[in-house]
């Protein structure tokens, strides 16, 4: 049996993690698998990866991929701050955050928004099941109006649409997808990782135990019936040649900062321009109105400056700097002292 190695010579197995402890059939497990595929195919160096998360079933998943990478399972809703700090310390890290809808849209909403505002270079995945899986099925703030809890309660509060929030805050890469749609999700994940700046992926990921019943709008059934993909994406990494072979006018080509391309093939009539913020908001809002789950790359701004750049951090990771780089020289120190005299 021959094992296929990726461009850095690693087998797919090198991207696996511990065995999952999630429920069989949980959408989160599918996302883990899609992530493994994306990271393997991209040839991400495991030691450069930092897997960050909050608390929840979703937040457990970083333990289930790329075992040899560092990971940090923090506290509930506060992954963004930890992620920001880690990236400040070492801007070479490929920072990948995994969160849940409870983790992000309730307790973590403020941090989520401020992370986006800073355009921190990271991938931020929300495994969105409309419920609190780990605490056994309470509504989360992404549950739709009219959606029914397992014990029968009906939600009457407007959901917080995380993509809308991300777009209005100037998020520079905003996509929605579905855990069951690997064909769409894997290229989006690759592009998110390649993107310089914050990449937010709101991925509907059914909770089979607490939110997969009739009346839920986050069930497999519902999503399969209501998903409306706006594009068919393909990812071409910077180290491969672009060989686009589509009919003109049928695709949009997004060139990412590192030279990779995300080629979006048009589906249906809708011709969504993913660099148009207002259009992005409209496509989501239209979906909301018609009860569809619009998926695909909603918005991207590939060349916006990321946090480290705006903060003028040096090329060399801050944490690698030593006494000589960091201490005032004796002369400078004496200067300060004499100013204080």
């Amino acid at each position: 049996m021959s094992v296929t190695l990726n461009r850095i010579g690693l087998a797919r197995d090198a991207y696996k993690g511990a065995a999952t402890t999630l429920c069989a059939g949980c959408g989160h497990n599918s996302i883990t698998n899609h992530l493994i595929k994306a990271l393997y195919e991209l040839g991400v160096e495991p030691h450069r990866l930092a897997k960050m998360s909050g608390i929840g079933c979703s937040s457990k998943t970083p333990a289930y991929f790329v075992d040899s990478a560092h990971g940090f399972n923090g506290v509930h809703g506060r992954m963004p701050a930890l992620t920001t700090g880690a990236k400040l310390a070492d801007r070479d890290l490929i920072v990948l955050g995994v969160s849940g809808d409870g983790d992000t849209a309730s307790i973590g909403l403020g941090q989520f928004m401020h992370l986006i505002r800073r355009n921190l270079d990271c991938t931020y995945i929300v495994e969105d099941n409309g419920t609190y899986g780990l605490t056994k099925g309470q509504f989360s703030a992404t549950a739709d109006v009219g959606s029914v809890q397992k014990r029968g309660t009906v939600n009457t509060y407007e959901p917080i649409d995380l993509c809308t929030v991300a777009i209005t805050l100037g998020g520079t890469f905003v996509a929605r997808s579905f855990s069951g749609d690997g064909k769409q999700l894997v290229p989006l994940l690759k592009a998110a990782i390649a993107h310089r700046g914050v990449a937010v992926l709101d991925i509907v990921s059914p909770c089979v135990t607490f939110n997969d019943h009739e009346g839920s709008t986050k069930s497999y059934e519902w999503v399969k019936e209501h998903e409306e993909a706006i594009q068919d994406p393909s990812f071409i990494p910077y180290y491969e040649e672009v060989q686009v072979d589509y009919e003109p006018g049928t695709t949009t080509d997004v060139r990412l900062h590192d030279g990779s391309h995300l080629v979006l093939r048009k589906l249906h009539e809708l011709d969504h321009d993913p660099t148009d913020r207002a259009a992005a908001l409209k496509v989501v809002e239209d979906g909301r109105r018609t009860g569809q789950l619009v998926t695909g790359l909603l918005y991207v701004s590939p060349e916006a400056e990321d946090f480290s750049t705006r903060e003028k951090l040096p090329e060399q990771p801050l944490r690698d700097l030593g006494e000589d780089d960091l201490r005032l020289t004796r002369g400078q120190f004496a200067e300060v002292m004499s100013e204080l005299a």
Partner: protein
Amino acid sequence: MSDPIVNDLTFQAATVNGSGSQSSNSVLMRAIFKMGIPVAPKNIFPSNIEGLPTWFQIRVSPEGYMARKGDPEVLVALNPATWAADLKGVRPGAAVVHEAAYSTANAREDVFYYPVPFTQLAKTKIDNDKLRKQLLNMIYVGVVAKLLDIPLEAIEHGLKRHFQAKPKAVPINLDAVKVGMDYWDENLQKQDAHRLVPMQGKTDGLILVEGNQAAALGCLMGGCTVASWYPITPSSSLCEYIGTYADRFRVDPETGEKRIAVVQAEDELAALGMAIGAGWAGARAMTSTSGPGISLMAEFTGLAYYAEVPVVIFDIQRIGPSTGLPTRTSQGDLAFVYNLSHGDTKHLVLLPGTVEECYSFARDAFDLADRFQTPVFVLSDLDLGMNLWMTKPFEYPEQPFDRGKVLDAAAIEKLQGDWGRYRDVDGDGVTYRTLPGTDHPLAGYFTRGSGHDEDARYTESGEAYARNMDRLTRKFETARSAVPAPIVDAKGSPVAVIAFGSTVNAVEEARVRLREGGLEVDFLRVRALPLSKAVTDFVRDHERVYVVEMNRDGQLYDLIRLHLPSDLVGRLSSIRRYDGQPIPADAITRPILELEAVPAS
């Protein structure tokens, strides 16, 4: 006129905040300092931007006492709202410079009045319309200079020093000072006994620095590369100083690159979270806050304790509970910080008592955090942090950074995989960590705030949990002797004081006073938690030990009681002051004299 009282007074200016009196006070203070006379300035300001009463005190003493002394001997009264109370507060024989319009009818007769028509003078003698309100304050500098015999050159020096950044302001202000001098010469005459005479050898080579400024320098010298913070009085200036110094000393002049990230976070939870993320990834990271922020940092602190992530947290204490008095000082966070967060948590807490320690403890806190892979708190306070203090210039560090037990790729390779993040290889409770980005397939591990075993694997095993918690206790015990030791000054007296932090000044002064009264009092100054064995020894060597602190509940007193073997507990008494003002010496002498029943001299 009584005998002159030389170089021993407290000056107080009572003004309205936002009116520009800060400059005047600074000029006066620098002028006196220039005369070679020790100064101890204290700014007593409201939680407000403009329009509320504010006071500035300069304590002057030949001995260089730096504790607050209430009841000034020289008052400049420029706030009608507090005029009555201000006047009531001065000592008999005081010099009271006041706006001439304020009534002194039926006022105290045991003080000397120097009425000055400030508003009138400002209107007629100061041309600059825009700056008139501010320059009015410079007039009192002139009056006070004459009143106390401060030479013009000293005032000029003070002006130059204060307006270092905008030298153009010097002559305009000097003119206003002269208005005051002229008014004195033409209208007033010295009546009170207080004056200043230049001194030698008392202030030579000393600098004046704020604790937060000193701590900022300490952070930079300690190699801090990530500072994330959220504004709050009285801690804001610490990170603002870091920013200012970093702009000067951490920026590559060619590329503009900055060898530090100073980030204003969205709140305190995020501020600490960022610092922990950075500490985890190997940076030397800090945050700085005050009471309310500490409360908000409880959850993340517990994570850093349990997941063993180095981070430095400054708490510049103000008086709580809750918002409390945001611009008043306190030592009220000690107990809360020591076991901040739910569950069994205990933290290393450094307790600087001087601006020098603000500098050196800040610097060394990063070493301690790295060595013990845990949050290290530095508890300062508003008095120490925001006031200027005389001190010797700080020493340049001669030691390299101590990054603690970090394994790089080569080390991991050598261990051939025989490595576990939480294995206590050395028996000191401190284990080896790797940093993200370490290029070795065995370097990675998963950090979490939930149960984990020696190899950082998730576990719910009660045994593994207890083993880990016991190791954390062991680590804490190792740290006990690594944190700054207490400073002991014992002369064999049976009576002693234990204190920590900024009360040191009042304690030292109280000891002199008590000694003058025939009572020698030994002194141990706690400089860190956990408490050292030296504290036990000290108490054993003394019959009666007074624990002095600035909080209601006697928090250090309690910690020491828990620390002592039971037979020594009864030796302790508690002396507390909690009115938001730095404790004065007599708040220590008085209760000690009472309890010792020695008649006051």
